[in-house]
């Protein structure tokens, strides 16, 4: 079976949280969180390894075409939310060009996946006593905050 034509959603190592209009997917391997809008989520859920791209497009009715599904697949693939690698259909075209092309023809919202990496260290969420990231070690704060060193995100350490 050609994976590019019958994509399968990744299921292991993920925490999936359904929200009213979106789906949040947290990748436990990379500690990346992804927020899939309705269109991206619908495509992702339809990726069962047995359903073809054209059949997935049909789930959206007449308002969508295969390019819309491919745009979602591209982003899902980029964010490692599919099993195996899927070759992009849009080689040589920028995403902006593709969106522009689809946007004019589609009645369905463009698929969007927003991503972020969870902070590596809990210390990243802690306050030091300085008003900018160099003041930990300089007067007048040097004697007052908990720092001997202070990094670019304002974390103190003695």
């Amino acid at each position, binding site marked *: 079976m050609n994976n590019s034509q019958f994509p399968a959603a990744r299921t292991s190592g993920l*925490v999936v*949280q359904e*929200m*009213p*209009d*979106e*789906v*949040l997917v*947290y990748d*436990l391997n990379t*500690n990346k*969180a992804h*927020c*899939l*809008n309705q269109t991206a989520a619908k495509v992702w859920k339809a990726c069962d390894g047995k359903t073809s791209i054209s059949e997935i497009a049909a789930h959206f009715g007449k308002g969508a075409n295969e390019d819309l599904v491919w745009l979602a697949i591209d982003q899902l693939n980029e964010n490692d939310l599919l099993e195996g690698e899927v070759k992009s259909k849009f080689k040589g075209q920028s995403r902006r060009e593709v969106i522009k092309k689809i946007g004019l023809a589609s009645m369905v919202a463009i698929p969007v996946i*927003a991503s*972020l990496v*969870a*902070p*590596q260290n*809990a*210390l*990243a*969420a*802690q*306050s*030091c*006593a*300085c*008003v*900018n990231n160099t003041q930990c070690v300089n007067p*007048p*704060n040097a*004697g*007052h*905050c*908990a*720092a*001997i060193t202070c990094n670019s*995100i*304002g974390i*103190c*350490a*003695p």
Partner: protein
Amino acid sequence: MSKYYFCFESYGVAVAIESASKEIVAQAEQTARSALLGNLIEIEHRGEEQCFQLNLLSSGECTIVQNGQEMATGEVSPKFWRFFDSLVRIIVAEHCKSLVFVHAGVVGWRGKALIFPADSFAGKTRLVAELIRRGAEYHSDEYAVIDANGLVYPFARPLTMRPDEVNPRELPMITAEDLGGISGESPIPVACVLFTKYEADAEWNPQVLSSGRGLMEILPQTIAIRRNTEFAINVLKNVITSAIIVKSARPDAAEFAGTFLEFVDNTAF
């Protein structure tokens, strides 16, 4: 070999502090009690706890080793204990299984919580202080402590104001009572989550976020997001889907607080 120790449990997390110095353990115990606002009980040393070893060196400096990892070495001074205070709070927040700790300012307003998750330097404390002056109940300038049902528990340590130009050497610790307010004592549901940061000349231009985007915004401020991911996300979903989620830069707290409370009154109740 550590001869002296103090073991405690706080929010369900067992922690051991060990040292060859009796005085260091005594000071560490005092710091831990203060860091956790007295929310700890002494327990027997079982050897299964999260562990701090405080190794006093011949130079007079002390090394903090957390679960076998050297965290820092420094002169045993107030700033050393302030750092240890942070580590104690983090280790409890990070390993707590039944509550989610979000780095945020929190006040109570009309029986519900207003939460301001943000990085350091965003102005959380000044906003919280200003809201207390206007009648809000103080819950925290450090953590929103949230249970599985989405209720927020008070973590009302004294507010730590950053030094200002008038008193650059001061690091005042003030209480809600100093500001003419009171501290919350009961868990409350969340009415509004505001992602905001002070910016000079900023205008209040609230953008209501979808629940998915709200969840994405709050994740980086969630202490145990990597360690207790599924539970944290479930709890945060409960909060996000039952509250109004707003984002905007804001002007100075004194100028902004009234506008914000009016906004909350009109939209979140």
